[in-house]
């Protein structure tokens, strides 16, 4: 483009060069998600190690890395509810806690108190609602399933990574699910006069789209054309479990449906990666049962 060639003489930034070839700031194409890796059983449960303290173990755990965002999820349950008044007579109670490690934000270190941070509480509730749509809660009346999510590194998209991590941890714990809940975000912005729909935004792109940090603070702000939409779906059933949009849609309903379609495509990709991870884990377990397993160190 002509306008960028003049700018190249003085100080070319990497992002300028990348935008010339229609790549995003980290070198991805608009419909590509970040490099995702899933690891089931990151904290081994009691059966894997011979420890004599079953109370300090968890039923299932998983570690999901999407780009630079890393989330660890630990599932405990189904177990007894502490208080009789909390138990539900016909289904299990799902308790979700989301915490951020103090070293999670890429800039400064911030101690976030999970009991008072509104954003974290909101995201815990969203996570709970998203997962209760999929867990077969009616199988465990008067019990409690507790999910704890710890965000180890936050580079944008922590809600989506948490939902993915929680799904994998529930699978690792053996809790029956209707379908895997996969989450991905999508957005739209104006790049050089053309509306571009992008999938799986990282922190910088979220900041550009919403005008504030993606993880902290409230939404709103940003220019009127930008949309940021995290979406969680059950891909095999084709149903949307969660979607959250805090931007003003100037293009009307068509803009929303375009972005939603892109997000569902992203969720489909995420599901393929997660399903492959689950199958690999299952293959390892079945090989162990037969005695043909390859034994390796439990590295993340």
């Amino acid at each position, binding site marked *: 483009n002509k306008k960028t060639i003049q700018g190249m003489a003085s100080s070319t930034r990497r992002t300028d060069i990348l935008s010339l070839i229609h790549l995003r700031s980290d070198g991805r194409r608009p419909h590509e998600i970040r490099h995702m890796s899933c690891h089931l059983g990151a904290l081994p449960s009691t059966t894997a190690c011979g420890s004599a303290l079953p109370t300090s173990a968890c039923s299932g755990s998983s570690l999901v890395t999407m780009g*630079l965002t890393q989330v660890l999820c630990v599932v405990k349950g189904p177990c007894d509810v502490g208080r009789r008044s909390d138990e539900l007579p016909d289904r299990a109670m799902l308790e979700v806690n989301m915490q951020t490690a103090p070293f999670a934000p890429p800039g400064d270190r911030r101690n976030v108190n999970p009991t008072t941070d509104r954003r974290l509480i909101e995201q815990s509730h969203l996570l709970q609602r998203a997962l209760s749509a999929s867990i077969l809660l009616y199988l465990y009346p008067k019990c409690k399933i507790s999910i704890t999510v710890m965000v180890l590194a936050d580079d944008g998209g922590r809600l989506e990574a948490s939902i993915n991590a929680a799904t994998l941890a529930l699978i690792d714990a053996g809790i029956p699910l209707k379908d895997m809940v996969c989450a991905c975000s999508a957005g739209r912005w104006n790049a050089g006069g053309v509306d571009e729909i992008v999938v799986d935004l990282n922190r910088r792109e979220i900041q550009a789209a919403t005008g504030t940090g993606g993880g902290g603070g409230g939404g709103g702000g940003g220019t009127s054309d930008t949309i940021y939409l995290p979406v969680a779906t059950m891909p095999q059933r084709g149903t949307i479990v969660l979607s959250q949009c805090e931007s003003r849609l100037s293009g009307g309903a068509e803009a929303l449906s375009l972005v939603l379609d892109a997000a569902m495509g992203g969720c489909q990709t995420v599901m393929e990666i997660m399903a492959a991870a689950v199958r690999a884990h299952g293959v390892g377990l079945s*090989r162990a049962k037969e005695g043909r397993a390859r034994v390796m160190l439990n590295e993340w």
Partner: protein
Amino acid sequence: MVSSAEALYIIESCLEDFRIDGRSRSEHRPYAISSRRSSSSSSSAKSSRKNDDDGKYDPVDSVASPLVLSNGSSRIHLPGSSTDVLCSVKADLVRPSPSRPDSGVCELSVDLSLWGGGGTATGPSGGGAARKRRRQREDESEISSLLSRLVLPHAVDYARLVVWPGRYVWRLSIDVVVLRADGCVLDACSIAMRAALIDARLPRVRALIDGGGGDGMGIGGGIGEGGGKGDLLVDGDIGNARPPPGAVGCPLVVTVSVLRAPPPSTYPSLRQYRSVPIVDARAEEEACASSRVCVSVDPDGVVCGVHTLGGGGAALSEDGDMEEDDDDVCVGNTGGGGSLPLAMLGDVVTAAAVASRNLYSLLDGDYWGDGKRGGANCEGVKRNVSVMANDGGGCYGHLLKGHFLIR
């Protein structure tokens, strides 16, 4: 919870110098450390480790530290057991405290929220959960205060963390997240801290104070190169990033548990207790300990601090009953105060010093880099085992059999 029969068995086996997992009294468990330098991975990482012996810090590794957004991080885990500790070091430049204007600052925080498998931090909680939370916070503060007393004063060279005396110093924020610990929480935390500090990379920052001479990080002044007076020149090349000065001298904490066998019942008049110190106790062994001593030793063998913790959670009273205990106690002093005869203190500290020497050689000697990967690499395993057997640090080969996870 350990039953009295199990406790007797554990104590007797320790007296025989053959503990329940086959170790001797002063052997450490084979911890695996993932940090930038010693994570087990492909051979290119191995060869870069060879280059590190001559003092060059090789920044290009094919393996990243476990937490990429921190200046340094490490993960300690014990394969096959339930010890998992993450530590992260983040650095930034702050104003120094007015009372100590020419030394850097280290802050430490310990997080135990995932200790019990999570749950009930914010959700609907009953009385039991509130108590658990309070105890968790007490444990956290106890661990962090112990670590900051035993390890932090000697962790780095504070005087060289200064960038601009009086204006800017480095502040290292160390966060330890204990996911699980199977006995010896303090040991695991201190190993993680040391690995993370050695792994941390601080960029070279030069302060321009009137254009004086000097070079390197932390020794004030700088050559005036286009910046004005009062600027900080940050070298953005990660190849020039250096670990915090003095991090190699960070001490480690060794927890020595003293197990005390009750006198045999056939001689009730003989009130002689047989005590034995053991190093790196597992959770079951800690539960039978009558007292624990944490000794912090630095790589030169100098003892930097000694702290006595109380009993390990349950004490065998005379008639062999176990006192009641709560679950999930990691550091706490429940179940009767521990007492230690003065004569044993010398033995304990000596045992700790010896064990720490083994531990340093274990951590720095890079035993865990190769050979423990996959069934296809069995020659590597054999080679590794023979290397360890020849070295004075004890043979860990027989321990490795039970310590892996199935993939």
